[in-house]
C-alpha cells in the first residue's frame, strides 16, 4: 500500500474528495495546515505593527491506497486540485508497510 499525501488549497477540498470517492476510495484523513512556498503571503497591519505573513492556509489530504491505485489517485487529485496558479500544492507518495482496521482487526488492503 502507499500513502498519498496531497497539500492543496482549502476551497478545493470538496472537489478532491469527490474525485477520490469516484475512484472508489472510501476513506481519507484531512488536516488543516499552513504552507510555505513560492506563493507569496500578505502583510497584516495592527496599529503601529506590520507583519509579513508567509504561511498560507492549506489542507493536507492523506489517503492510503493499494499500490495499484496510486497513479489514478494522483491523477485524480491533480485534476481536481489544479487552478493553474502558484500555490496549487504538492502530492507526495510514500510506502506503507501495514494497515489495520481498529474495529475489526482486518489488515492491509482489507483494512482501507
Amino acid at each position, binding site marked *: 500500500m502507499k500513502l498519498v499525501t496531497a497539500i492543496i488549497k482549502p*476551497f478545493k477540498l*470538496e472537489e478532491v474528495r469527490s474525485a477520490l470517492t469516484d475512484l472508489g476510495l472510501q476513506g481519507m484523513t484531512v488536516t488543516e495546515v499552513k504552507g510555505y512556498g513560492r506563493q507569496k503571503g*500578505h*502583510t*497584516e*497591519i*495592527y496599529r503601529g505593527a506590520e507583519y509579513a505573513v508567509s504561511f498560507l492556509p492549506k489542507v493536507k489530504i492523506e489517503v492510503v491506497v493499494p499500490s495499484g491505485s496510486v497513479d489514478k489517485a494522483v491523477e485524480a487529485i491533480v485534476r481536481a486540485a489544479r487552478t493553474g496558479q502558484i500555490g496549487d500544492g504538492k502530492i507526495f507518495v510514500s510506502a506503507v508497510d501495514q494497515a489495520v482496521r481498529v474495529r475489526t482487526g482486518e489488515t492491509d488492503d482489507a483494512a482501507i
Partner: protein
Amino acid sequence: MNFGTPRRIATAAILGGLVWMLAAPAFAQTPTPTPPVPNKGDTAWMLSATVLVLLMTVPGLALFYGGLVRTKNMLSILMQVFYCVCIVSVIWVLYGYSLAFSEGGSFNSFVGGFSKAFLIGITPDSMAETFSDGVVIPEMVYICFQMTFAAITPALIVGALAERMKFAALALFIPLWATFVYFPIAHMVWYWAGPSATVAAAKALAAAGPEAKAAAQAAMDAVSANAGLAFQWGAIDFAGGTVVHINSGIAGLMGALLIGKRVGYGREAMPPHSLTMTMIGAALLWVGWFGFNAGSALEANGSAALAMLNTFVATAAAALAWLVTENVVKGKPSLLGGVTGAVAGLVAVTPAAGFAGPMGAIILGIVAGVICFIACSAVKNALGYDDALDVFGVHCVGGIVGAIGTGILVAPYLGGTGIFDYTTGKIADYSMATQVIAQIKAVCLTLVWSGVGSAILYTVVRALVGLRLGVDQEREGLDLVDHGERAYNY
C-alpha cells in the same frame, strides 16, 4: 411615539402665532402660555433609551451579522456596521436631522429643509415636543435618539451584501443612501406639526366666531398639512416598521440582486463561523430594542410601558413560533432559528409597540415568526437570490407583517389603544378598512421609494468604484483584502 415627531419650533411659532391672533377675541382672559419645562423623568428615560439603541447597533447588530459569515469576512462585517454608525452620525448633525425633521417648504410632503443644518440655533435649552400637548424634552436628546435610528437603518442593509461588497463601495453607498432614501422616508412618515400647534389650532377653530371661522379653518388646515406624506395619509408607525425595516429590507434585496451571488454560493458550504456571536448579537438587539420601541414614546409613561411589554411578548412568541415551525418542517429546533424568530418578532412589533395590546402582540409575533420562516427558507430558495443574511426575509417581510398588523391590532375592540385625535382630544373613531389601507399605502410608498432609489444608487456606485473584489480576493476574504487584518489568531 413616532407616528409623528416634535415639530420644528419655528414652524409652530408661526402657525401658533397666527392661531393665537385669530383666537384672541374668543378667550380674552387666557394668560399667555409659559414655555413648557421638561420633566427630568422623561429626559432620564430618553437618555437611557438612546444609549440602548446604540447598543443594538454596535455591538448588537454587528455581532448578529458577523457571527453568520465565514471567519475570513468577520471583520469586514464589523467594520461595515461600525462605519455606518460613524458616517451617519456625522452627516446627521450636519444636515440629516434638518432634512428629516425640519419643514421642507414646497417639498415638505417628501423631505425637510436646511433650516437646522449644522444644528444651527439648537442649544441645550432648546426643547422638542413629545406626543402630549405641552410636554417636551431637550431637543438635543431627541436629536441623539433619532440619530441612532438613522445609524442602524443603513447598517441593516450590510447583511444582504455580506461577504462580497467591497468596503470602498459601501463607504460611498451608505451616505448616499442615508441622504436620498432614509432622510426623506423618515420625513414622510414621522414629520408633523406637533401636538401643541394642532391642539391650539383646534381650540381656536372651536372658539372662533362666525367671522373668524374661515381664517381659523385655514389655520387648522395649514397645521394639518404641515406633515410628511404618509403621515397625512394617516398611516401609523410607532417605532419604525416602514422607516427602518421595510426601508432597509427592500434596499438589501435590491443590492443582493444587483451585486450577485457570493463566489461558491450553492456549491461550497458557508456555515456561520460563530453562532455564539450571533446569539450575543441577537440578545443585545432584544435588549437594545426596548430603547428603540419604548423610547419611541418619548416619555417615561404608560405608553412606554405598553411598548416595553409588547416588545417582550411579541418577541418571545415569534421565537417560539419559529422554533415550532422549524421543528415540524426540519425536524429540529435550532438556536439560529430561535434568535432569527426573535428578531422577526422585534421587527413586526416595532410599528405596533405602542398601539397593540399584549395579547395582540403575541398574535402578531406568532404570525411574523411563521411567515418570516417561510420567507427565509422556501421562498428564498425558490427564487434563488443570495440575500446573504436574510435582510429581506426578516426585516422587509417582518416589517410588512408588522405595518399591516398594526392597522388591525390598534383596534380598541382588539385590545389596542386606538388612535388619539388631537383635534377632538380623544380616541378617534376606528375603521379597520381605512386604517389598513393607510398602512398599505405607506408600505408601498416605502417599497417604491427605497427600492427604486437604492437601485439607482447601487448603479451609481458601481459606475464610480465598482461593487465587488476579484474572485481570488473574495476567496481570500474581505478581512485581509479590504482591511489587512484577520479576526482571530488563536
